[in-house]
């Protein structure tokens, strides 16, 4: 099969095209816009049999997406950062409608200060909404994950929407060789959406999204969502296996890099994992048994997989490209919670880096790996660290002087 050089955004658009979605309500926001422009062009050229519509906001966009999915159409939409937050109310709402739409989020740091480059506070803000979350490192993975996302979302044991996440700029605008699957093969993997649970038609009036009063109904429906989401872990394994059989590529709930005999494990997500893998390779060259765990499926959280991987390791370092102000790394907390009852648990270190797309340099990776080795030697676990190099500090001081604040 011929590989094409595609950006992350173009790969997302290809995934949507191959999934033969019916409906794309959209709203532009950097760095996502290339996805919807590409889809608009294909639909306009008759290459995709779908309706494209630009809404008046992301709030309206997610509403239209959810309502169309509740009517029985296969729906795609995309957003980033401020847009995702503007539509935030509707993320929870449409998830509660149990509609299997797929959304792409192209990660970008959150205002204020307003910025363009990525971190994961936007996507992780949606963590508890009921959307499933798949986080991607490569362009191929973006395309493949969208196809898998529809299969997962539309499975009657799941029936929840999915967000596929990719980093703005670092992946959205980076070209990589991507294998674009054959449409007939995709059709076999992902047949037409024919819902039995939610639709609108004259012969069968249906009330959807109705209110409940009191905790009885509310708890019931929230528990249902949670159980369906955790059930999606099992469904995901089947979907992943079938995807591998059909297309020859495997995308698990996580990706391990040099994990087999690793004693020191970096935990990362998304495109910066590539930097982490290079650092692991360098550490191996120096005889340090390092490895990397890249989390892919964040909701549902593959807790058992993670506990199994971490068993018997010496130190785990979570590099969070996000910051929960006043607490620290969000994924650090999640990893800690699944290790806390283990008998032989590894030491756990926490670093925050890459906020707003700030680089994580080889020197910083070396520092983090050294910290792990030192932690074993001394038995001392350092407090959470905020990565910021001396050079970056000096540059910031220079800018402050220009601003008259030096």
């Amino acid at each position, binding site marked *: 099969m011929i590989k094409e050089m595609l950006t992350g955004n173009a790969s997302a658009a290809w995934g949507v095209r191959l999934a033969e979605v*019916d*409906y794309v*309500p959209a709203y532009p926001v950097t760095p996502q816009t290339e996805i919807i422009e590409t889809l608009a062009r294909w639909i306009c050229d008759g290459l995709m*049999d*779908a*309706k494209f*519509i630009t*809404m*008046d*906001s992301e*709030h*309206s*966009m997610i*509403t*239209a*997406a*959810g*309502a*169309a*999915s*509740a*009517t*029985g*159409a296969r*729906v795609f939409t995309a957003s980033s950062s401020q847009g995702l937050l503007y539509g935030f*109310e*509707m993320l929870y*709402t449409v998830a509660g409608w149990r509609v299997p739409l797929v959304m792409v989020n192209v990660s970008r740091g959150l205002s204020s200060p307003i910025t363009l480059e990525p971190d994961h506070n936007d996507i992780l803000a949606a963590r508890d909404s009921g959307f499933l979350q798949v986080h991607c490192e490569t362009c191929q993975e973006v395309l493949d994950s969208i196809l898998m996302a529809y299969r997962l979302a539309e499975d009657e044991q799941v029936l929840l929407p999915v967000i596929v996440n990719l980093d703005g700029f670092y992946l959205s605008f980076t070209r990589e060789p991507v294998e674009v699957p054959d449409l007939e093969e995709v059709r076999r993997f992902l047949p*037409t959406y*024919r819902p039995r649970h939610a639709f*609108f*038609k*004259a*012969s069968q*009036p*249906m*009330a*959807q*999204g*109705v*209110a*409940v*009063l009191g905790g009885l*109904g509310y708890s019931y429906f929230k528990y249902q969502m949670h159980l369906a989401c955790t059930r999606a872990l099992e469904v995901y394994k089947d979907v992943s296996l079938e995807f591998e059989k059909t297309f020859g590529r495997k995308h698990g709930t996580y990706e391990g890099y040099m994990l087999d005999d690793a004693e020191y494990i970096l935990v990362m997500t998304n495109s910066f994992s590539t930097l982490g893998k290079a650092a692991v390779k360098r550490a191996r060259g120096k005889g340090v048994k390092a490895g990397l765990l890249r989390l892919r499926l964040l909701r549902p959280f593959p807790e058992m997989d993670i506990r199994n991987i971490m068993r018997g390791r010496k130190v785990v370092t979570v590099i969070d490209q996000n910051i929960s102000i006043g607490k620290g790394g969000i994924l650090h907390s999640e990893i800690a919670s699944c290790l806390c009852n283990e008998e032989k648990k590894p030491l756990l270190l926490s670093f925050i880096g890459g906020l707003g797309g700030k680089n994580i340099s080889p020197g910083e990776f070396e520092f983090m790996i050294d910290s792990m080795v030192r932690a074993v030697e001394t038995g001392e676990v350092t407090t959470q660290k905020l990565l910021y190099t001396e050079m970056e500090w000096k540059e910031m001081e220079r800018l402050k002087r220009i601003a008259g604040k030096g």
Partner: protein
Amino acid sequence: MERNGKTKKNSGERIKIMEAPIKSIKDLPLEENLLPGTPACAGCGGLLSLRHCLKTLGRNTVIVNAASCFTLLAIYPFTPFKNSWLYTAMACAPAGAQGIRDALDILIRKGRLDTEEDLKVVVLTGDGAAYDMGLSSTSGAIHRNLDFYYICYDNEAYGNTGFQWSGATPFASRTGTTPLGRLSKTGTALHKKDLFEIWRSQKPPYLATILPAHPVDLANKFKKAEQFKGPKLFITFSPCPPGWGMDPSFSIKLAKLAVNTGIWPLKEAVYGDVVHTVVPKKFEPVEDYLKEQGRFKHLFKPERQEETIKKIQDMVDNYWRIYLSAFTGNKM
């Protein structure tokens, strides 16, 4: 009134407009799509209007609701509607309508849904969503020429939260957030937004004001609207007994007073051209309308606020002077 069968021109399209097929209450559709037993307040004017709207709209309708009193009409596992229903959120019911309309069209076109399964899509919101929070999504839907109905039941405040000021609250009304006190004896100093004119600026094919005391006028407006593809918008005057401070049995009388005093003009606009459909032969003083309601009680007791009452009367008089002289088509 317009003559029957007048032809209207809009961007090259010629439509023969049918006028007033319903002559009296006896001609109103017998079918009921909103059944009794809802948790709405006794004497809710909005609910009465909605019942009449759904009689004319018929069963094959999906109601897209924004957060409002009527969100509590369908509480799991019950619904009072024979129609379909989707509760969205407060700001975005028109966007929900867009999603459903588009999905129905696509599924029918692709042969995944029979044409007879098609539904009318109807947005149902209170004035809080219509005048304030949902204005952006409403404007968007009108601009995109979405083929849908929009019913705003206007009780002139945030009613479901216990009657607080909204953009629809009229001048001098007392509400929970525009109380009377040592520094303010008038209620709100702001004037009601003119939602009809805001909508009209976008020239939708059809928009109208209605109220539950004139069901024939209401039904004829829905019949007329049926002929247009695009946004069909209705604002219904909705007496709110607990909020307005009046007896539930008085709702219909108050709605009649609202017409007869000129406070609530019954009108329609086809592609922006306004016609008043019910014009009182003799206008009653607005005082008769105001003094019946707790929310305006302070204008009369402990002392009469002559200037404020006159200001309201002047506003009403000005409205009718301008409109009756500007739109010469109004002949009773």
